[in-house]
């Protein structure tokens, strides 16, 4: 009972924090607005076309995407850490982002899609992007699992290192593919690869929404399995769980989440690393509780990072991926210092 209270309280605090971040993000920018303007615009009380434009075309889609990507990465990171039993696992570090990214860049090249100006004609291709990313992400995940497995068990350190090298491999591949694009598309792809959400629009929201919703539900329903995976493998099998099959399903689901995120926002690392850790320290070890908290923390972290990225160097924008790594890497090092060898 106590634990449930704590869980609800945590969720409530995260909700408040997210709301605060939302407030900062929607009222500040190169065009400042008061909260009343925002509320009036949202509730359609004597609408002002200028405010409509800023809110509905620029800020709101951007915040919604930041929320969705944060949720996706938070959940995916929890699954990765749970399945690999490795506290340092993160989709970005493991190279799954890079794998999804490379195949999306390939997709952009093949279909010559101008990612900057999504017109109605390319609507279907936007919807296809996560699917393409999924292929690359799954490939990266498969490579990592194959290479880091020795004598039937996964080695923690080797997992990270394999991820790092797969990361640079796919990074080089994306670079090579993107060099074949025309200059404008290349510029676009370069910014996108570092991770940025400043060219958000509603089509992107629509393209990732089904992935996030469906896969989050599936993962949540399976989240109790992650608790069992923390035990010895033999014990889990004796409980009548087909470990390998469930692990693969969970990994594929999180690869799907990651691909949807990457196809919209590029490769954003370290959210998937930080969110689960913070969640665990807040609500304990049960994944059914960790999962929603981790999603919430990811959401909050990404909105606030995006807010920093758009305001700190105003009027120029910093890719949010850079902000997240500057925050995330010290945290990663802190975890390394703290972790037992």
């Amino acid at each position, binding site marked *: 009972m106590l634990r449930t209270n704590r869980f609800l309280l945590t969720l409530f605090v995260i909700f408040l924090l997210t709301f605060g971040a939302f407030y900062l993000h929607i009222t500040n920018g190169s065009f400042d607005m008061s909260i009343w303007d925002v509320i009036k615009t949202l509730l359609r009380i004597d609408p002002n076309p200028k405010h409509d434009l800023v809110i509905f075309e620029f800020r709101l889609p951007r915040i919604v995407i930041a929320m969705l990507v944060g949720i996706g990465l938070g959940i995916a990171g929890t699954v990765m850490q749970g399945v690999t039993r490795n506290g340092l696992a993160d989709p970005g570090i493991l190279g799954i982002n890079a794998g999804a990214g490379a195949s999306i860049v390939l997709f952009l090249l093949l279909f010559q899609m101008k990612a900057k100006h999504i017109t109605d004609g390319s609507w279907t291709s936007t919807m296809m992007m996560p699917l393409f990313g999924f292929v690359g992400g799954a490939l990266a995940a498969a490579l990592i699992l194959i290479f880091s497995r020795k004598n039937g068990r996964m080695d923690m350190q*080797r997992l*990270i290192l*394999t991820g790092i090298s797969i990361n*640079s491999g796919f990074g080089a591949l994306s670079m*090579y593919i993107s060099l074949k694009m025309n200059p404008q598309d290349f510029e676009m792809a370069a910014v996108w690869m570092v991770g940025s959400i400043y060219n958000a629009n509603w089509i992107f929201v629509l393209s990732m929404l089904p992935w996030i919703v469906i896969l989050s539900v599936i993962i949540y329903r399976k989240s109790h399995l992650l608790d069992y995976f923390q035990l010895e493998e033999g014990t889990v099998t004796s409980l009548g769980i087909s470990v390998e099959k469930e692990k693969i399903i969970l990994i594929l689901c999180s690869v799907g989440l990651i691909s949807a995120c990457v196809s919209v926002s590029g490769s954003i690392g370290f959210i998937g690393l930080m969110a689960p850790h913070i969640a665990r320290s807040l609500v304990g070890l049960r994944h059914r509780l960790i999962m929603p908290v981790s999603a919430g923390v990811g959401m909050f972290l990404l909105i606030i990072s995006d807010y920093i990225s758009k305001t700190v160097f105003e009027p120029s924008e910093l890719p949010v991926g850079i902000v997240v*790594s*500057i925050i995330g*890497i*010290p945290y990663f090092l802190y975890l390394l210092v703290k972790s037992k060898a």
Partner: protein
Amino acid sequence: MSTKKTNWIPIMILAISPFFILLAIVISVLYGTKDISALTAWQAITEFDSNNVDHNIIVGSRIPRVVAALLVGAFLAVAGAIMQGITRNYLASPSIMGVNDGSAFVITLAIVFFPGLSNYQMIILSMIGSALGAGLVFGFGSVIRNGLSPVRLAIIGTVIGTFLSSIASAIALFNQVSQTVSIWYNAKIHAVDVDMLRIAIPFGIIGLLLALFTSKSVTVASLGEDIAVGLGQRTKWVKALSMLAVVFLTGTSVALVGKIAFVGLVIPHIVRFIVGVDYRYVIPCSAVVGSIFLAFCDIISRFINYPFETPIGIVTAVIGVPFFLYLIRTKGGEKSA
């Protein structure tokens, strides 16, 4: 048996290497985006005509380029060999241990805050940056429990490297010089500055000489700290001198062409596999094999996306990543983790 192996193989490598170096130079000078006949190339060297575009391409671009590739290949491979020997870490190399990133980071700061530095100052700053990168990574390594183990140190190095480059690109974006800066981060071997090349050569040579000078001690150090001390080695001095060599070599390389990954990792492994573990042979052989390797990577980089150039880092990554995976797979067990 092993003594016999280490005697003639390295000598043979050193003996046939001039042939390959010459081959690399010839191919590199003759082939590129613009078709230039061998005769014109020869004339460019013997009777240079400053009004002739082809002559200018040969003398101003292709020759400096191949010289830079050969030198940087040698510098990075030797730096990697020393690092692997001294730290007894099979994953040590300038790019993985954050040394390259440190250089590029300091160069970024210099470009942003003190524009218009001379090439000399650039090289010195780049060397300071190398030392900074190495210092940070090894510093963290010694703070973290078991942090000096190969795999952990590699993780720390990569992460700190990413951190430095993130900050650098943020600063660069803010000051709107990101294009200049990205040139330093992405190897710019296709646009070597001839003046810089002239200045860089002596610095690199100093580094190489230092490396050769310490090579015997590196062999002893590579047997382990206890044995080295037991054999009467002053390990502190050896470490300091060899790190100085690494700083000279990497700093010069980055100042010259920017960051190039994997050369310093892959080459020393291949060389050790062939010539054994005596660093008196490993270091010179790494130098020649590294220079030939990078010169050919440079040639490949002109042709995989002809007529456009491909960054050389992509070529070295394509070769280096599978090799890296292989190393982790075969050596990265729990014992070394």
